[in-house]
Each structure stands twice: as C-alpha cells, then as structure tokens.
C-alpha cells in the first residue's frame, strides 16, 4: 500500500474541497438547524453530490457507479468533516451501498445500487438498539413466516432515517445469526421518530412492529449477511474516522489562526509557551490519526483481512483526537469559543456525535485488544 494519494484521488479531494466550501459551508449547517429542517440535510447538495459521482463512489460501473473505493469515500468524508456538511453519504453511499454490493442478490443490486448512485434513493443503515455501540447486541428479531419474515424491534439514533426511502436493518434470525434486511420505509408497522441531536443532525428512532417482509428482503448474495455486516461496520468506522479527522483538522486550523491573531497582555496568545506546547502536542496526535485513517481506508481497498484492526484503531484515535481538537479549540478561543457566533463549538459538537456513532474510543480500544488477542 502507499500513503501517497494518486492523481485521481488528489483531484477528487481538491474538487470536493472547493465544492463543499462553496455549496456547503458551515453556514449551511446553521441554516438547516435554525430552519429546523425535517430531515437535517440539503436535498439539493445531495443531488449535486450524485451528479459529481460521489453517491456511486462504491458502486460498480455496471450499476451506474464510479467504483473508486473506500480511500476515495474517506477523502470525501474528510472534506465533509471540514465544512460540517450533513448528508446521507455515510449511511447510503458507504454503509448501504457496501452491504448491497457484498451481500445483495443480483435483483437487489439492480434495484437499488443505480438509485443510490444517481442520488434517487436514500437508504439508512440501522444497527444499534442501545445507547452505546455494540454490534453484537442485536435483539431485533426476524422470524420466518412462510417465504418471508416478520420483523420486530427498535433501532435508535439511525442517521438520516427521516429522509430515507428504505432501511437496511440488522436483525437476528431464529438461528441466532445476525442478518441484514432491506425494509421499505413506508412498510406497515414501521414507525420513525425524529431525534434532533447536538450536532444539528436529525437521526431517527425506528420501531418495527411485526413488519411483514418478503423473502427477498434478506441480503444473502455473494457473501452472507453476517460477514457483510461486520465488513460494512468496519468500512463505516474508517469512513467516519475520516470525517472526524476532517473535523479535527479544521477545528485545529481555526484555532491556530485564532491564537496567532488574538492578543492578551500585549502579545498574541499563540506566543505563550503553555499554548504552544499544547498546540504542538495536538498537531502530533493528529499526525497519528491521519496515518491510521489512511491505513484503514487502504486496508479496506487492498488487504481486507487486515481491515478490522486498522478500522477499530482509526475510529478510536480519530474520536479521541477530534474531541481533543474541539475542547482545546474552545479553551484557546476562551470566552468567544463558548458563543454560538463562532464555529469552533459546532466542530466540538460534531466531534462528539461522530465519535459516538459506530463505537467511541473506549469501544475501539477494547476491540483492538480483542483483535490483538489480549
């Protein structure tokens, strides 16, 4: 593997940077928040992403995608992190697209992947049922019923679920295994409740009350559901870590700029060694996070067997570092860092939310210990 971006990746990142800066700056998130947007993201930004091919970044060309791989997906999310862009990119273009690609039947793939690539369909990915992430704690049941299933259970804080056309739901079948099911958002017995979160996103709690599913709702293609489930979560962790890294980088850049300008006691506060050492420490920690994110993304693309370890490590480190960048940012801004007027607080909030989703730093450390065999 190489840590160096190839020309294609470089171009993708540059174009993402300029697109997001123009179309989805931090003020766009503020507007979604202040308007109490019902889905929490901009449909027009989402369409533009589709036009640029982003939505199909993990979709094969046969199904209308551009198939650039996880490194590319991660680079896009890193840039989205930098401008706090809220979109269904992670749940739809990463998690759901990956699940369909790995475990979808030909029919499922043909039905959904082109719609994902074109931006027509938003699919949410429903995992957790309790407050803290744990992919083994799945109590939602899918009970065999004729050729189909009956689905019951509750999922919590599902990203972008309010605007979703369908969900991919992790549920336990009677054999105790975790399987993935495609569930129409409008199916009878599905009830979703918007949850407005501190990062101004709008996930939803979803209740499945004896929802009748056809047999072909089950994802069971080239790979079985459970294998795909674990791989998709790894991919989600690496990509979300990339977003957290972007959040950290922008928060850090804002802070460094601020302490260069801001004067106290007749000199820029960035000239005080106390702050200098902490800023340099944070920079050093970010170097580590940068490496792990890249390593995890490349592992997904090139050496999938190594991905679980690197994805868990990347998620843990990016969570830790982005929260540190946010909290140090607010402290170094001082009083104005506490005001809604400055953006630094929005970065801190997103760092917290992105950190919690798919496993925070404690969870990630535990996972690294397990995978390392101690």
């Amino acid at each position, binding site marked *: 593997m190489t840590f160096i971006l190839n020309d294609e990746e470089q171009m993708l990142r540059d174009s993402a940077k300029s697109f997001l800066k123009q179309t989805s700056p931090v003020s766009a998130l503020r507007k979604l928040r202040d308007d109490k947007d019902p889905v929490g993201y901009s449909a027009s930004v989402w369409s533009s992403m589709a036009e640029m091919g982003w939505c199909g970044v993990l979709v094969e060309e046969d199904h209308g995608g551009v198939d650039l791989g996880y490194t590319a997906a991660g680079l896009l999310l890193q840039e989205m992190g930098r401008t706090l862009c809220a979109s269904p990119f992670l749940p739809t273009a990463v998690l759901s697209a990956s699940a369909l690609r790995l475990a979808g039947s030909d029919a499922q793939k043909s039905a959904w992947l082109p719609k994902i690539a074109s931006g027509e369909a938003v699919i949410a990915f429903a995992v957790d049922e*309790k*407050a803290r992430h744990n992919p083994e704690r799945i109590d939602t049941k899918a009970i065999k019923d004729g050729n189909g299933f009956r689905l019951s259970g509750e999922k919590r*804080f599902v990203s972008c679920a309010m605007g979703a056309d369908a969900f991919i739901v992790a549920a336990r079948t009677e054999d105790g295994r975790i399987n993935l099911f495609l569930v129409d958002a409008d199916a009878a017995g599905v009830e979703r409740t918007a949850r*407005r979160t501190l990062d*101004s996103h709008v996930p939803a709690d979803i209740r499945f009350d004896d929802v009748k599913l056809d047999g072909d709702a089950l994802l069971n293609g080239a790979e079985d559901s459970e294998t795909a489930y674990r791989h998709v979560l790894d991919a989600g962790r690496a990509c979300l870590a990339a977003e957290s890294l972007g959040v950290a980088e922008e928060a850090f850049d804002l802070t460094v700029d601020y302490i260069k300008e801001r004067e106290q*006691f007749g000199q820029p506060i960035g000239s005080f060694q*106390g702050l200098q050492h902490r800023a340099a420490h944070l920079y050093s920690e970010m170097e580590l996070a940068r490496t792990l994110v890249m390593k995890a993304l490349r592992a997904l693309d090139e050496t999938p067997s190594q991905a679980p370890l690197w994805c868990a490590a990347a998620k843990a480190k990016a969570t830790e570092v982005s929260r540190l960048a946010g909290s140090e940012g607010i*402290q170094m801004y001082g009083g104005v860092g506490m*005001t809604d007027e400055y953006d630094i607080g929005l970065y801190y909030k997103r760092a917290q939310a992105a950190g*919690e989703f798919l496993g925070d730093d404690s969870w990630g450390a535990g996972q690294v210990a397990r995978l390392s065999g101690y």
Partner: protein
Amino acid sequence: MSLEEFRAETRAWLEANCPDSMRTPISGEGDICWGGRDWKFKSEDQRLWLERMVSKGWTVPAWPTEYGGGGLSKDEAFVLKEEMKRIGARSPLDSFGIWMLGPALLKFGTHEQKLEHLPPIARGEIRWCQGYSEPGAGSDLASLRTKGVLDGDHYTVNGQKVWTSYADKSDWIFALVRTEPDAPKHEGISFLLIDMAQDGVSTKPIKLISGKSPFCETFFDDAKALVKNRVGDAGQGWTIAKYLLSHERASIVSEGAFGGLNPITAAKASGEMDEDGKLADPILRGEVAKLTIDGLAFEATMRRVKEEADHGEGVGARASALKYLGTELNKRRHELNMSALGSDGLLWEGDAESDGDPARNWLRARANSIEGGTSEIQLNIVAKRVLELPGG
C-alpha cells in the same frame, strides 16, 4: 444562646415556616429565585419562603442586621445551613448581589453605601449583575477600555462590557470603569455602581454553544453613575475586583463539586450496566473509576482547605489550584457522562423539557475553565505565587 439552643430554635422555625414545595430539589435553573424589580415568582410558596426568610435576615445570615442580614456568627450561619440541608430547603434567594457585591461593599463600602444598597439585596428587591470583562480583554482584565469622565456629581460612562450574567434581567450593574486615563494600567480603574434603568444603558443577550443565553453584552452610551456610588477611592477598582474574583473563584469551584448527573447514574439511565451491575464497557469503567477517585479527593480537599483556612493557615493562591482542579474535573465528569450516555447524550431537544440537558450541561461545563480566570491563568498563579517560580 448556645449553639445547641440556636440549632433547636432554627430547626423548629424552619419546620414551621419552610413550605413543603420549597423542600423539594430544584429541577433546573427555572426554579431558582433571583429577585429584582421585575421578578415574577414561580409560585406562591416561593414568594412566601422568600418573605419569611427576609424577615429573619436569613437570605444573608451573616450580614449585620442593620443592613438586612441575620447578624449570625460564622458558627450559627453554618448551623442554619446544616439545618436547611437537613430538610432539603431550597435557597430562598440567589443573586450576584449576595455573592459578590455584598462582600465587596461590606469590605470596601461606606456606611451610607451599605445602608442604601445592601438591604434591597437582602430583600431580593434589586438584582445586580457584574460588569468586568470587555470584548478583547479576556484574561487581561487590567486592559479595560470602558471610560468614565468625572462631571460634577457623576461620571459619564461610555464603553462596552461583555459576559455580564443576566444583564437583561438585572436592575443595577457593578462595573469596572477607567476613570483615571493617565494612571498606570492597574491604577486607573474605579468600581462604579450604575443604575441600569436609564437610557444610556442597554443590553444584548449572547447565544452560547449550549443554546442558552445567560450572558449579555452591555453597552454604556453616556450613562450616568453618581460619584457617591463609586466604591472605594478613584483608581481602587482593581483591588476590589481582585478581591471579588477570589469570591467568584470559590463559587465556581463549589459548582464544580456540585452533584448532578455522574457517569454511573448516566450509564444506568442509558442501560449501559451489565447484569453484574458493572459498567458494561470495561475501559470506560476504568476512566470512571479514576474520576471517582479524583472526585472523592477533590470534595475532601475543599473541606480540608476550608478547615485549614478556619484554622488560620489561609488559602491564598492555593485557591487557584482548587479552581483549576475543580473545573477540569467537572469537564471530565461531563465528558464521561456523555460517553456513558452514548447516543442518548447526543439528544439536543425533544418533547420533555429536560431533553438535551446532559449535552447542554456538558457544553456549559467548558466555560468553567474560562470564566473567573482561565485554567492557564490559575496555573500561572500557582507557579508564581505558590511555587515562587521566576517570572517569564
């Protein structure tokens, strides 16, 4: 009267006079009684409780009776506090007048100033706010620019303050104003009491990252402050402010030690304990255990330092270490609360009024290490004044 007699009488009086609803824990800021000209009592019991306590002088039990206080000795005041705590009695009145201006006036004010300003504070009639910080001044308070020009019996004040708590709800402001422009930085500042019910004073709330707006910007536009409302001498403002800052420090610290949600109750609330009653995530549990140790240590340290101070060893610059420890600890507590709550902690608003409280309190806690002197300033003070390290 012996202390035991005082305790018995106090207990009986509180039993008879504290309304039942004033013996329940406050559920949020909305239950606090702040007083002031425009105060609307939240309940008849709240009004009654204030009135009864005012009649005893027990809103400010240790102030002299002639200024509206209870005239209690330190020991008696402590007994009163214990007895109130015993029945869970709410504080009848909270105010910056009680916490900050009162102590300053008692130490630096004239008899006339005390007579004019203290009783309305004690009775909850006048609500005060504090005007220290200015935009751009931050930790460097001595660089203040709000100006007061002497003009007969009053100063004409122009400038802007920031971080004035509840200025939009207050009646008067005690402010640091540069009245001696030619004096050295620290010696040109006076401590003025300014009536906010005049055209020259206006306020604008500041929206915080927690979504709340407890602070304002306050503008002085040819505002008038009578010379008789200058506390201390012209140019003595810095001395008084430093005295008050140490009071503020103490109050922020005690807030830091205050109960509320902790990572264990949080984990219970979010269902993150396992069947053995252990915190389910073992690594998070380790972090929480270290917080428990530091929390036990900090609360006991507050008692130790208080005891040592009573014993004549003084607190002095060690207060800065306590402020640092308490506020950093409180931030850690809130961070671990959020981790223990997982996605539940991310909720910002919902149907219940308390929805979003953990997140908002987590964000609010970030200010602990900024207000009342940043953690960096406290560490500087410890380094220079406790450890006597050389100046940089």
